[in-house]
């Protein structure tokens, strides 16, 4: 490997710090006592976290966000992978039209489907439920499109070899295609998870009960609940924000090494 150029490394470090600075600043602020902070002094405390978790139910919101984003990711990516495999490998009547329809869904802004989704869920009595939060998000045209393109790049000879080895289509998908497409599936999973984690509008519309609030709703509510006499309690808001971003950061660090590896090396020829 070529030794790193110190100038490039230095520039990358500076750029990284610039990007990280808001997050670092907010994490630092979340450990400051509000009174001291506004008085221009610094005093380390964990009270903001205790307050966010105890009084403002952020532990519950965190759990809700994990349940909703987790299930949307797992169910959505599973369905998208199956759809992608079908679109990549099978020719069936209306297949191209159907794939065109999937692509077309990418061109519809999500806010347009807000009211129809709300009315549909109201009709089947799923508002104010986990299912109401999860179901509209699990069909993901972009994931199906992205994974189809990836699967098309996997040599078809591998499917055929598996068929000759005695595999059924289902086994070809789960035992051969999915392991090879793992980097793409994990990348797409991370993307879906973060998108759902940050989703604000749909939970706001679909849920009224506080028990089902996700972190984003809780965070927004914190401003309204806690205007205080002197305005917003920023250290508390920053503690809540840290609770909001931390799981995503941890998740990213855990799967990052799987994202970039090319795995088809040595498959054919």
């Amino acid at each position, binding site marked *: 490997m070529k030794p790193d150029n110190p100038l490039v490394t230095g520039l990358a470090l500076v750029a990284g710090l610039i990007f990280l600075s808001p997050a670092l600043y907010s994490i630092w602020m979340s450990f400051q006592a509000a009174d001291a902070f506004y008085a221009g002094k610094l005093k380390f405390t964990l009270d903001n976290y205790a307050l966010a978790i105890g009084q403002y139910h952020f532990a519950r919101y965190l759990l809700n966000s994990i349940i909703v984003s987790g299930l949307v990711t797992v169910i959505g990516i599973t369905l998208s992978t199956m759809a992608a495999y079908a679109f990549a490998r099978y020719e069936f009547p209306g297949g191209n039209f159907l794939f065109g329809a999937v692509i077309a869904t990418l061109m519809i802004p999500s806010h347009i489907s807000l009211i129809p989704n709300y009315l549909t869920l109201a009709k089947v009595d799923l508002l104010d439920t986990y299912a109401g939060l999860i179901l509209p998000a699990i069909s993901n045209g972009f994931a199906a499109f992205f994974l189809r393109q990836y699967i098309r790049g996997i040599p078809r*000879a*591998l499917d*055929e*070899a598996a*068929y*000759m080895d005695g595999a059924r289509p289902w086994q070809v998908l789960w035992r051969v295609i999915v392991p090879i497409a793992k980097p793409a599936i994990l990348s797409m999973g991370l993307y879906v998870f973060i998108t759902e984690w940050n989703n604000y509008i749909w939970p706001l519309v679909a849920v009224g009960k506080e028990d089902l609030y996700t972190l984003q709703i809780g965070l927004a509510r914190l401003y309204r609940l806690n205007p205080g006499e002197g305005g917003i309690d920023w250290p508390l808001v920053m503690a809540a924000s840290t609770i909001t971003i931390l799981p995503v950061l941890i998740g990213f660090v855990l799967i990052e090494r799987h994202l970039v590896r090319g795995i088809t090396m040595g*498959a*054919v*020829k």
Partner: protein
Amino acid sequence: MSSIVLQDIRKSYKSGPEVLHGVSMDIEPGEFIVIVGPSGCGKSTLLRLIAGLEHCSSGTISIDGKTANDLPPQDRDIAMIFQNYALYPHMTVRENIAFGLELRGMRKAERNARAESVAETLQLTPYLDRKPGALSGGQRQRVAMGRAMARNASTFLMDEPLSNLDNALRVAMRTEIKELHRQLGATMIYVTHDQTEALSLADRIAVMKDGHLLQFARPETIYDRPQNRFVASFLGMPAMNFAPAGKLPGLEAAGDAMVGLRPEILSVQEQRPNGPAVNARLLFSEMTGSDTILHCDTPAGRMTVTATRRAIPEGKKELWIGYDAKDALFFAADSGARIEPSLQD
């Protein structure tokens, strides 16, 4: 081992011309069949139809007497070795070899033992825990063979399995395949465009061109009595010489037929021999080891002769090429079909 019968197999792709035009073959259990032909002749398509990876447009494929047209590949008891090996990149050599056994529900200890025994036969034991990406081309080829062997399938299909190997390895693997056939006794159908592989491996050879089966016979028959000019020219290295009968002394009686003379039955001499001969001018020669291939210009056109290296003195350009009329093959000038002309008059 299975018997495989193909009856009038036709194949055309959606909105495309027909690529197989009624191929029929009767393959005995345990036979080693080699399908040869130039690129695009339909040989790989035929193999894929037998494997069940594609469906024929019409005709019948029978395996062990049962129609198999609609049988999925998993249910045909056929193992296949692909030209590009198609190894599972995320599995180790052991897992690659044992995957088919796992799908058939064999217990882990048993299938690992089998994978290890196959690996030993193919000298792959040191690589059992490696993934295909860490293997050389020859090792990958052996893993592909091992994967097919582990299954104990009754029929093996091989689609140009040696074409990606260097020459020395190809020769070694050819011997191993022959040995494998002897050990397993399974029916083997082998596709190649390499005539040496075809002649050395096959019990019977099927020669194909443009989607037609031109001849299906034993290697000796194909070589000695090719049904037409294409078959005659496709097998044999260097290729058979063709010349109008009228321009070759002693063969004029064949009229306007084309005469085919294999390079190795010609003799090259400095003086005019007693039998029929044609004078030639040596253009250049190629040394192939023990032999030399002489490229000559004659009144009947360009001819190649396989001769021993010391057959002609250095620098000698004007030569005579002698032949025996009974070794000559005759082909109709228009259709190319082999004919048996009367040479009495």
